[in-house]
């Protein structure tokens, strides 16, 4: 069968792939997409979206637990974990269908199957109905990433699971060991703990959420511990063994060895790029530490071949992938796009309380030789937060002392992941502390903490 011709072939329909496909279509290009799973990729099906649904469940359970505080007396309640999973599947299905709708709307062809590069313009799709060949003037690779494990530990998705298993499994263990205290580890620790699972979090680095500001890590570590989650940092995992009584994890901390037992181990030590089986080696596509090397316009070392999202490295975040997808599409359409500003990608963790940040941590800013001024505002002093009963956390602004440049903002607290965007916009526009303080913030809102922390950085906080 003759090859079908398109302007662009996009391999992978996660947030990077589907956004780039839609942007290409908007720019008048004909687009084919190739997907070996369901449209929407890990994000919509197995990652961001279903976990947010689970975390919402955890939050509701948390509120039921606090009902007395609001004067509501319950005669006991039952939180069904299987139904939480079922709800999250419905949410994911709905979002994935949304992607299919957007493809139809933008006249984007979807070819189910695994894509294999035969040349820099040809993709062979091996699907259920046989093999099809697609020709594209340009090709965008967006195959994403998959969970990593520790050396010598196999993720069997039964007793040693990854996030892939966790979002699917309706079974609730009695006890769980989460290996890795990054965003994924902390979010699942939160969900399982809310449903009464005895959770232990192990982190090799000295603090949880190790890429966040140190104050953020300290606060989250404290709050999780207070909630009954065993948080152990600076712990080296030696081996993971499966036996009759669940899983045994051999650990070493401060030179002392011990064994920990649990029903289940959740491996959350990071993700690796999915670059195997795509035909990259035959084309000589350059890789760096397992990720595809790309130019500022997302082109790989092979002309006309683009790579975006997790497989292209840097932050493995859906919103970064989407931004790269737009850049790649516009580059292909000859629009001369502005490259992604990797220093201005918000980072969000949706545990309770939420964590969000943008820019440099205080320590990084100081290490970069910046003379900084730091402003903090605790949510205990924010009227809206007190009314909501969500007073845990703070908002911290790190700015350049002489210019007022917003170097970094770090938030722990309710809706932190929404609050961060005031500063994302501010940083994009190169606003300084002064522009923030001259912006009237509605009262009462959580956003007032942004204003107050900024004022605090200038030594002028009103409400503290």
């Amino acid at each position, binding site marked *: 069968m003759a090859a079908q011709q398109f302007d662009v072939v996009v391999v992978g329909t996660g947030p990077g792939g589907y956004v780039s496909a839609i942007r290409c279509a908007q720019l008048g290009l004909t687009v084919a997409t190739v997907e070996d799973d369901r449209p929407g990729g890990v994000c919509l099906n197995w990652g961001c979206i279903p976990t947010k649904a689970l975390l919402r469940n955890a939050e509701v359970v948390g509120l039921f637990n606090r009902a007395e505080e609001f004067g509501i007396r319950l005669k006991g309640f039952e939180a069904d974990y299987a139904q939480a999973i079922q709800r999250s599947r419905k949410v994911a299905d709905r979002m994935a269908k949304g992607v299919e709708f957007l493809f139809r709307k933008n006249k984007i062809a979807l070819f189910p199957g695994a894509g294999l590069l035969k040349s820099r313009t040809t993709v062979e799709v091996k699907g259920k109905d046989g093999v099809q060949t697609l020709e594209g003037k340009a090709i965008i690779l967006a195959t994403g990433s998959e969970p990593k494990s520790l050396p010598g530990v196999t993720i069997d998705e039964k007793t040693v699971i990854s996030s892939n298993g966790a979002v699917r499994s309706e079974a609730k263990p009695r006890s769980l060991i989460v290996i890795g205290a990054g965003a994924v580890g902390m979010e699942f620790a939160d969900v399982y703990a809310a449903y009464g699972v005895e959770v232990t979090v192990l982190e090799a680095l000295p603090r949880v959420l190790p890429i966040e500001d140190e104050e953020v890590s300290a606060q989250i570590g404290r709050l999780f511990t207070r909630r009954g989650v065993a948080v152990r940092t600076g712990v080296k995992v030696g081996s993971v063994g499966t036996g009759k009584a669940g899983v045994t994890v051999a650990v070493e901390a401060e030179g002392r060895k011990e064994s920990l037992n649990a029903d289940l181990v959740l491996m959350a030590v990071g993700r690796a790029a999915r670059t195997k089986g795509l035909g990259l080696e035959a084309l000589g596509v350059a890789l760096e530490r397992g990720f595809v090397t790309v130019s500022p316009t997302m082109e790989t070392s092979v002309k006309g071949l683009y790579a975006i999202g997790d497989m292209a490295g840097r932050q493995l975040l859906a919103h970064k992938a989407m931004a790269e997808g737009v850049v790649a599409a516009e580059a292909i359409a000859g629009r001369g796009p502005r490259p992604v500003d990797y220093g201005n990608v918000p980072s969000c963790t949706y545990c309770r309380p939420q964590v969000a940040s943008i820019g440099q941590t205080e320590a990084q800013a100081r290490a970069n030789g910046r003379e900084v001024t730091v402003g903090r505002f605790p949510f205990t002093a924010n009227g809206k937060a007190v009314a909501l009963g969500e007073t845990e956390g703070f908002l911290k602004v790190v700015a350049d*002392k*002489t*210019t007022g440049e917003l170097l970094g903002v770090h938030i722990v607290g309710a809706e932190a992941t929404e609050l961060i965007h005031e500063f994302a916009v501010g940083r994009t526009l*190169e606003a300084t502390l*002064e522009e923030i303080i001259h912006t009237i913030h509605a009262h009462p809102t959580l956003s007032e903490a942004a204003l107050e922390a900024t004022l605090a950085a*200038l*030594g002028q906080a009103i409400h503290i």
Partner: protein
Amino acid sequence: MITKVLMPKLSEAMETGKVIKWLKKEGDAIKGGDVIAEVETDKANVEIEAFGSGVLRKISVDAGGQVPVGALIGIIADPSDDISSVSTAAPKPAAPKPAAAPAAAPAAAPAAPAPAPLPAMETYKSEPATTSVMPMAPASAAAVPSAPAKPVAASGARLKVSPLARKIAAQSGVDLRLLQGSGPGGRIIRRDVESAVTAPRPGAAAQPAPAPARPTAVPSRPAFVIPPRPAAEFEDLPLTPMRAIIAKRMPLSKGPVPHFYVTSEVAMDRAWELREELNSLDGQPKISVNDLVIKACGLALRKNPGVNAQLNGQAIRVHHRAHIGVAVSLDAGLITPVLRDCDIKPLGQIAVESRDLAERARAGKLRVQELTGATFSISNLGMFDVEEFSAIINPPEGAILAVGSVLEKPVVVDGAVAVGRRLKLTIACDHRVMDGAMGARFLQDVKRLLEEPLRLMV
């Protein structure tokens, strides 16, 4: 009489200047022409002369203070004059209040080091009052350019600048109007200002290069020695303030100004002989080839006013004086002091003054008015044994002459080959102001004057 001493504007790019030191104290008697202070600009250190007589009644900006161009730095007046109105109402030309710092601005906002507010170019709407920027006209007042040239960005046009970029520019004295924004829609963003920021001050930049490592003595193998060289493949030297200004200014000439070039070869045999004869006279100043070229250009400019011209908004300004900027190369870059009235000054005076300017340029002792007001420039690389080259116009001037070396070469004289001295001159002209023929006619006149050099003497 009250004379305000204001921070002078020495270049298009100059936004602020720093008082290095006061050579007079409050209460000192001042005569017109006294050097009263030294000022550091982005390009050079210059001395400020008093243009009024009286007593230095007030020093408004102490040594070390950095203020915008046009800001009041001192007051000279008679002891009986009431200076209170002057000292309180300091003029703020070219330095309107920063938009980001209204009256209610927080005190903790990064404070300007000087009493006058730092300029915020986005609010730049009106032209600074000419008189307050250039009040210290020298005796030959007419010789000074009548108004500072317009900002590169159309005056009144709103500059798109990010708040952070504006702040960094104000703190580092970068003129935003000279920058090309790289942000969305040409918005000037931090990166643009930072790349233009004058890196270390001359003091820091002028540090001697580290002494090269002493070659280890290898007496047994004298045959082939690789000279010692640094281990690193390369090094990044910070831009000196002067280099940064040159880097900023030259694209603003070469880019927007359509250059055309005309080259001519001049027979210098007679001029050479005349020069040798003049230089053998006792007690006479030594004349250089460049002095001859300066004098010839002065005369030729008078005859070709179309070349002694510049684009001034919607008009072409034709200068009635021939003030020639003479490029002097320095370690850190180059500077172009101005030799005034070259058409009427005798050759001997041109020789004395040009040497004096060059020496003081190298010593950083030029005065304010010696750096401004050129109507034409000359750049001479003759000492480097170059045959010819072309130069970049120094805006807002309309033309520049590039002077090569006087070279001995075979020439045809009366049908026979002989040895002659030849000099190649290349004029770069702003095509918006003049056309090829005008440049060629000017060059023809310069050539004739140099080939019949006695014309330079009369």
